[in-house]
């Protein structure tokens, strides 16, 4: 375990390494490693392989390549294939675009897609500006540092709860009786009890409350990390040039937060469209009144797992994948993230 510190310092400079290599006194093995490519492939021993800098990277990334092929590429291809088949009781028959045509006319699918899209948009609207403002407040020099630290910790705690437990808690807090916590709070303002999970809007409010509870703190942390990477000098300079706080926010903070913003938006689009568990737990299962809580993944789960109609469910999956990839790739392209990644 102590190899790092002991091996590091004596040879930490490039010059010394170079002389040591050039001298080549100690063992010939490191030089063998360099020379291995000049030999015939047939002449490689195990030792050569272990020292080869040409071969090593392929061994290092092999686990990823295997994972990618076995657990992502193969299932993905299988999804595409199954989406053109009718798969029942292990028998599959090619049906062409039948599943997609059925999907196009399937009102419940459109409802699920609408529910997912609505949830995604609303979480973007709620879970980007609010955490951003809170992060800016936390990052300002005003106020007690201790209060801020406790605030950060307290807002992060919900992210530690599993969706299962959080869903159980929120389901019970949004109980439709007058004795549920949320209805009690409403009663303080003289409102009648709301039958939360029985109405479309009520269910949506509960779902968004759950999302905000779990993810506000996380997004604050993302934005704080971004804010802290902006050099103070930018603000000093702007302040000397007479920019007020609002101008500084729009001219310095926002543009410099772009990488963070891109990241948070991308994972929010993904997470919003692929949301399933929150609804599954809130409604204690995949069924909700008039399918008001049904999402695309929920529908995929219903058709594929509950009703064992794998071909149709695969078509749902393909549509979801296409939608998510299309939105994310467009967004990443618009923000220029790809060109940056390519330069590396």
């Amino acid at each position, binding site marked *: 375990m102590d190899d790092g510190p002991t091996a*590091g310092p004596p040879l930490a400079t490039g010059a010394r390494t170079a002389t040591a290599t050039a001298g080549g006194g100690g063992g010939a093995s490191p030089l063998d490693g360099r020379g291995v490519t000049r030999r015939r492939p047939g002449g490689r021993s195990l030792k050569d392989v272990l020292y080869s800098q040409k071969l090593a990277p392929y061994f290092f990334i092999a686990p990823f390549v295997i994972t990618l092929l076995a657990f992502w590429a193969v299932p993905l291809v299988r999804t595409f294939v199954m989406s053109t088949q009718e798969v029942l009781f292990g028998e599959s028959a090619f049906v062409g675009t039948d599943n997609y045509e059925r999907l196009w006319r399937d009102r419940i699918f459109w409802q699920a897609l609408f529910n997912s899209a609505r949830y995604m948009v609303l979480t973007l609207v709620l879970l980007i500006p609010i955490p951003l403002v809170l992060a800016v407040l936390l990052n300002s020099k005003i106020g*007690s540092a201790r209060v801020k630290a406790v605030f950060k910790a307290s807002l992060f*705690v919900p992210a530690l709860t599993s969706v299962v437990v959080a869903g159980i808690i929120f389901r019970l807090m949004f109980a439709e009786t007058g004795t*549920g916590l949320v209805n009690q709070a409403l009663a303080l303002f003289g409102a009648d009890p709301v039958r939360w999970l029985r109405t479309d809007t009520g269910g949506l409010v509960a779902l968004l409350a759950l999302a905000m509870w779990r993810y506000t703190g996380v997004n604050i942390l993302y934005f704080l990390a971004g804010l802290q990477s902006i050099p103070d000098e930018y603000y000093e300079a702007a302040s000397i040039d007479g920019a007020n706080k609002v101008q500084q926010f729009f001219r310095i903070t926002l543009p410099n937060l772009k990488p963070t913003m891109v990241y948070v938006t991308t994972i929010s689009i993904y997470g919003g469209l692929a949301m399933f568990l929150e609804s599954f737990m809130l409604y204690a299962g995949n069924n909700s009144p008039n399918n008001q809580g049904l999402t695309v993944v929920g529908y995929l789960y219903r058709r594929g797992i509950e009703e064992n109609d794998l071909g149709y469910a695969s078509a749902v999956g393909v549509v979801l994948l296409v939608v998510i990839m299309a939105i994310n790739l467009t967004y990443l392209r618009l923000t220029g993230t790809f060109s940056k990644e*390519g330069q590396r």
Partner: protein
Amino acid sequence: MSAPASPTPIPVATPEAVAGGRRQDPRRPGRTRHPLPRGLFAAVQTSFLVLIGLLVLVPLAAIFLGTFQDGGQIIRNGLSLDLDFSVLSLDNYVLLFTDSGPYFRWFANSVVLTAVQVVLTLLVSSFVAYGFAMYEFRGKNAWFISVLLLMTVPFEIMMLPLFVLVNDVGLADSYGVIVVPFLAASVTIFFFRQYFLGIPRELLEAGRVDGVTEFGIFFRIVLPIARPALAAMAILNGMVIWNNFLWPLLVLRSSEKFTLPIGLNTLLTPYGNNYELLIIGSFFSLLPVLVLFLLFQRFFVAGMTAGALKG
């Protein structure tokens, strides 16, 4: 970092320096930086933060109070912060420790599975990341872009064909199926790559000169100095794996193999008669992660913000 967009860069960023700079500027003598006086602004801000901070803890307080109450009542009436001292009791705690059926079996399953999967994920993912960070090789860019793309492909789409595959080869109800597909985790690979890029290459050369193999360099030189990254990723992965639900729900069949989230979910049925265990079991399942969080807060933050760092 590029130079700040100002004619006169200020090297030291202290409030005094700014105030000094402002005093020297005769054109804006009376300019204040805030519409409110500083003290008032700070007071408003502090009370605002305290209020929200407390509000966020309300659901946890509610379930904590619920552990002292009758489970059936809670399911009927909902959770609230009401305190009726005549009905509070420790019965549920007695139940948990004496007659909770498979609960602690699930708990132990979750602990072991999480520990094993975290260790293996860190090893495999850092191993892969090292290849991307330290070597030039053909196809590197394409492979790395596929790491990035995997971060945006929802597992929910893969789950159906994987589920079919698992059933076909008869591997359902096994832990291996839960663990193996996720050992080379793209977010974790990405984080380790960023970390390894910051390690001086001279260290590797030193190892090579000393006759260490390429893999020895990784295991004996690089991994030991990557301890902060390992800690951050252990916590991030631990959190996700401890709460893992959907895939284990599909794969696991027998109750004695259930993990905590799966087990708890089975208690949430309309015909259940074990709601006491549901409430106290849910609360109790939060404790390990909460304790770890209180002990290792800074690593949590480092792990969570890993992906958002500039590349």
